[in-house]
């Protein structure tokens, strides 16, 4: 295999189909940027959900010692063992309740650290500052009110929170955008692949004299095909590089310098997540076009 020969062939091929190559690069870049964006949005949602989000619908937070001094709902003091037993017993008697989990303040502390490893609060936080809680899985997820009305005024209960209420709208929006992005990505990817198939067809046709001679003098089919495949792979790689640039630009300008200022409450996905997505984006960018070219060659190039 003579690398120089192959590379000069690729260069010639890419220049000859400059417009088509450009179209391939742009469509691959857009589809991959959408793919990366969708993956990051999913990661964003997952990082915001925390430990209990998909497991329960209602959280009953219990008063701890600190709350007893500061919170109006806890004026009757921190929760006692007796109160806890009663709450648990009453919860389990309710028809709408499916399962009850207990989270100790130590566990709460662990889950918090997992969810917000970078939070500035973690070093100063201790386990006994966290609230104990009962996490309730409902047989009918819409029946939050039943639990809420029964327990929110009880002694030892700090608050009853509808787990979905807080973030559901945001998640619905993110998930909707995610689905839309993936759909658009699929569409752009199909466009990109069709463009590649067409490029290969044109390329194979305009080079049929060369490939015909190569076949006659006994060049292996791999040797005949590899310039076409690498051509597609190079175009795809360029698309992948553009997509990566778009993702990093989006993270830097859109998220870090704009969204993070506007919405300081949310912890957005970090650079580590972005950097984790990039290799995937580049790999898909190289492999998909190469595969498409390979399949197109089976149809348009006799070897």
């Amino acid at each position: 295999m003579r690398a120089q020969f192959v590379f000069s062939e690729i260069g010639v091929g890419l220049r000859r189909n400059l417009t088509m190559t450009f179209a391939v690069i742009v469509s691959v870049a857009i589809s991959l940027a959408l793919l990366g964006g969708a993956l990051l949005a999913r990661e964003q949602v997952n990082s915001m959900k925390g430990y209990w989000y998909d497991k329960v619908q209602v959280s009953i937070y219990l008063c701890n010692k600190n709350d007893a001094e500061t919170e109006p709902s806890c004026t009757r003091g921190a929760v006692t063992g007796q109160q806890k037993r009663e709450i648990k017993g009453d919860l389990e008697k309710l028809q709408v309740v499916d399962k009850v989990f207990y989270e100790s303040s130590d566990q709460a502390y662990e889950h918090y650290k997992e969810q917000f490893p970078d939070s500035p609060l973690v070093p100063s936080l201790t386990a006994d500052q966290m609230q104990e809680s009962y996490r309730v899985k409902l047989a009918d997820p819409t029946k939050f009110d039943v639990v809420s009305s029964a327990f929110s005024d009880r002694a030892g209960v700090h608050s009853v929170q509808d787990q979905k209420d807080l973030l559901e709208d945001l998640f619905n929006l993110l998930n909707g955008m995610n689905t839309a992005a993936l759909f658009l990505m699929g569409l752009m990817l199909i466009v990109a692949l069709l463009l590649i198939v067409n490029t290969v067809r044109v390329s194979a046709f305009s080079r049929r004299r060369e490939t015909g001679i190569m076949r006659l003098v006994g060049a292996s089919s791999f040797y005949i095909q590899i310039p076409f495949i690498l051509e597609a792979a190079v175009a795809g790689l360029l698309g992948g590089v553009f997509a990566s640039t778009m993702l990093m630009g989006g993270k830097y300008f859109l998220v870090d310098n704009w969204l993070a200022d506007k919405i300081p409450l949310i912890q957005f996905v970090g650079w580590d997540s972005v950097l984790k997505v990039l290799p995937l984006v580049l790999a898909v960018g190289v492999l998909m076009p190469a595969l498409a070219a390979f399949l197109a060659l089976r149809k348009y190039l006799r070897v």
Partner: protein
Amino acid sequence: MIRFDSVSKSYPKQNHPALRDVSLEIERGEFVFLVGSSGSGKSTFLRLILREERASTGQVHVLGKDLGRLSNWKVPQMRRQLGTVFQDFRLLPNKTVGENVAFALEVIGKPRGQIRKTVPEVLDLVGLGGKDDRMPGELSGGEQQRVAIARAFVNRPMLLIADEPTGNLDPHTSVGIMKLLDRINKTGTTVLMATHDQQIVDQMRKRVIELEKGRLVRDQSRGVYGYQH
């Protein structure tokens, strides 16, 4: 070198087979003319030898290999031991004469040092010494065909297949090409040449194989072109 055992070839969507029950053998070092009118099966005969097609029935042996059983990925290896020349030269117009010949070596991965040494040698052999840097478009038809022959011969093939190599050339130039092919044959390379050129066949007095409607109708050593044409 080449052996056909009751070979038939039919193409889909065609009523009459292109070759019917052809059996013959061509020995090492022979010079053979393949004649017959258009549509007689000459091209199919050559395509079977190059394994561009497979026989429908019967067996084709080339260089000791049963082409029907040769797996696809071994075909390039086999073709490297054949040289092929066509009526339309099939040169690359944007490469020089030297590059055209070198191309055949590059694409089968020969080292550059060997290419640099072999190409001028073979151009000398075909009578184009010193024309390495000319473009094919600057050469006459006869010279272009010599380039094509140089490219076919640069690997020192055991078998040279020529499909009407003089079809686009005037009689005088054709004689030069035939002398070259004869010289190549004298080096021990088997030459199989399909042609319509009566004069050449009659002059050379080599073995003549004639096909008609896909059948082998004549196989004559030291033959002439034919009677009925």
